[in-house]
């Protein structure tokens, strides 16, 4: 069998994934921390102040990566949710549910830092334009998924129901992304493009990309950490989990 396919199948086994994630977790956190520090240094010190917004534009370095991560986390959650619903893979269900609170956290940071940026720039803490409204709806979708997951007793059924809800809500993602193109919004249109040149000067761009990378790495670290704990809870009856308990007494039951 193809070694990659074999590894993929092995990864679906909870004890294997637990060990795998545990091995990589410290490295991921370290990478996120280092890249984050470098990016933050660039954001606060080396990036020149914006000629219109002055130093308030530095909020962008926190606001934009979190906004990107809020959307990415939802996509990750929905994709894993889909796999979990169709193929009933326990790990996919776990990863999907683990990414919900992280995505919600990023979306929350996006909304609040956006509000803090909007006050000096637009003169208002909040406006009901398409981008802000759809981002708020995204936060409510996250809360709905998390709430539904915690309301059902059986963890696997709960994950499936919440994953189903996440898939229904995925229609909001293109709305958030294209809101600044489809509607006349107060929020500015995009300046950074995945393909083609970006409308932002390089000295301002590199801290943004560095922080975007750092938040991605952090996201995966957080999801892996939460998934490990979720697997411990899910598999608490199994031997491999019991073996992890501090060996005070070893009853065999």
């Amino acid at each position, binding site marked *: 069998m193809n070694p990659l396919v074999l590894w993929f199948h092995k990864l679906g086994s909870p004890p294997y994934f637990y060990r795998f994630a545990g091995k990589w977790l410290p490295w991921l956190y370290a990478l996120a921390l280092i890249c984050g520090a470098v990016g933050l240094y660039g954001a606060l010190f080396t990036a020149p102040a914006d000629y219109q917004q002055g130093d308030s534009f530095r909020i962008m370095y926190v606001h934009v990566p979190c906004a990107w991560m809020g959307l990415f986390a939802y996509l990750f959650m929905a994709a894993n949710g889909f796999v979990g619903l169709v193929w009933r893979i326990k790990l996919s269900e776990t990863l999907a549910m683990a990414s919900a609170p*992280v995505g919600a*956290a990023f979306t929350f940071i996006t909304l609040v830092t956006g509000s803090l940026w909007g006050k000096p720039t637009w003169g208002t803490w909040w406006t009901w334009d398409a981008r802000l409204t759809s981002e708020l709806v995204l936060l409510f979708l996250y809360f709905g998924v998390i709430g539904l997951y915690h309301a059902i007793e059986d963890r696997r059924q709960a994950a499936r129901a919440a994953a189903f809800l996440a898939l229904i809500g995925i229609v909001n993602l293109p709305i958030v992304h294209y809101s600044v193109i489809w509607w006349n919004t107060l929020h500015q249109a995009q300046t950074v493009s995945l393909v083609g040149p970006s409308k932002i000067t390089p000295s301002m761009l590199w801290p943004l990309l560095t922080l975007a990378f750092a938040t991605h790495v952090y996201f995966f670290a957080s999801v892996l950490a939460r998934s490990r704990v979720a697997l411990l809870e899910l598999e*608490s009856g199994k031997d491999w989990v019991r073996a992890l308990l501090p060996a005070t007494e070893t009853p065999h039951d």
Partner: protein
Amino acid sequence: MTDFFAMHGYAAYVWPSYALFAVVLLADALAPVFARRHVMRDLARRVRRAASRKTP
């Protein structure tokens, strides 16, 4: 230096943003640590109870 801390007048907006970023992500990073402690403590309690029930 003071100019940097005052962010040329925008300090009230910039520093809370960065602080929120740090605090929320720190809380998110610590959550699995506490959750794991809770789960393992629960499990240990259950194992002890099951063991004490078996030994007459």
